[in-house]
């Protein structure tokens, strides 16, 4: 069922909430614990713009449990405008029109169906920026 596991990700998945370093201003995504050598409070919550460009992409024609109905689907590493890389599915696009460097924006979509007794997992995907 994994309900708590997915619920715990709500800020990451629905708002693209990451973290900003209070001293250096560095932004990272997703949120994670401060390192052993850091002040535990040095990273503060920060909501990213959800915009970036394609760093690399692939189209999966063989996938795993939970994603078989979606297959084939495109997946990308996106360089977010704030600096971090993220991996996410692409949506609302054709494989032939994808390219490295293409501007993309975050949208909320269904990610995964965990089965009859489970949860529908929603989260971020990216689509080409609508001009």
């Amino acid at each position, binding site marked *: 069922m994994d309900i708590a596991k997915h619920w715990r990700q709500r800020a990451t998945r629905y708002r693209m909430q990451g973290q900003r370093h209070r001293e250096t201003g560095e932004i990272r995504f997703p949120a994670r614990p401060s390192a052993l050598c850091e002040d535990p409070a040095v990273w503060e919550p920060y909501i990213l713009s959800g915009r970036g460009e394609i760093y690399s992409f692939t189209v999966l024609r*063989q996938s795993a449990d939970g*994603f078989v109905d979606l297959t084939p689907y495109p997946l990308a*590493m996106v360089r977010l405008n704030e600096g*971090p890389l993220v991996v996410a599915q692409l949506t609302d696009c054709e494989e032939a029109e994808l390219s490295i460097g293409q501007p993309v924006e975050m949208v909320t979509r269904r990610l995964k169906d965990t089965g009859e007794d489970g949860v529908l997992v929603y989260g971020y995907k990216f689509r080409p920026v609508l001009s």
Partner: protein
Amino acid sequence: MKPVYIVGAHATSVAEHYEFSLADLALEALRGAFKMVTPALEPERIGAIYVANAFGEALVGQANLGAALASAAGLSGIDALRVEAAGASGGLALRQAAMAVICGTYDLVAVLGAEKVTDKLEDRMEAAQMLSIDSDTEADIGATLTSQWALLMRRYMHEYGYEAADFAPFPINAHSNGKHNREALYRFSITAEKYLKAPQIASPLNMLDCSSLGDGAAVVLVASERLARELTSPRVRIGGSGLSTDTAALYQRRDPLLLNAARQSAATAMQQAGVVHADIDVLEFTDPHSIAAALALEASRFVDRGAAPRHAADGGITVSGATPIATAGGYKARGDVGGANGVYQLVELVRQLQGNAGAAQVPNARVAFAQCLGGVGSTAISHILLAE
């Protein structure tokens, strides 16, 4: 590194072994390894069994594999445990065994890589392999282990100006060597033409650039100097061992095309052994895809960054090249044996160092390099093996 030896090595064929269980395969590999030792050693001489396995829970429904496989071997009561670092489990088991022998805890440890995958269908196998990448932010959003390598391949092509076809020499070399290996899953050659026509799996990775999982088990017997000197059969010395880690999530790396853990573990192993790149005669890498072999060759500083496909096209990775790889077929032709891959690598390198590698023998091989990766290089373990 203090002296520690491999005194026996054996692997089962990699195949869809529907008729055999994990324990059946483990026993075949153990028997084979003991047969190499003269004078014969009593199995009671084994101090411990270190099981290398990545998918026991996910694909066999069995954990607690130290006890399960030790008792299957009739050795209940001895020290037995399982180590797991996804695809790097085999190298990790060797490293832990060597350290335990050097400490004087045991005179003989059986490193047993064993994997049983074909009881489940493809989507479950893919899901098992996804356990090695980040669960919350990679696997849960639909990334697979294969897709991560595909993303790296596309970026590599973009940065260094290659086409997918430029990677063909890697699987061609793997199959050309693997067809001579009786234990290989795929014993046939492939051509550049076939590579170009192969259907896409995770673009730009196609079917002839993706390994297939298979069942199998492999064993190396790790012995102290004292025990090794009792034996008249040939041995190989473990000269150096390095382990390093990187982020589980690929996107968290500053430079995703540099496998940092591979770089660090290779440097440590070579420094311990007192060898330099030019000394190394034969190599084994985690090579389920060409891009994995290319990035590992570059990270380990055998070729410059961006140069691996050209190096392969110039024959550099063949048996007669400067860095022969996949001499038993690599992951692509021998078959991908999950957590047992690292032990299969050792079995092949022992053959090479003892001159028993048949048609894929690297002439006069004296120094060998083994590197296995867990995930996309999140764990990297490198070893140097030396002919005695």
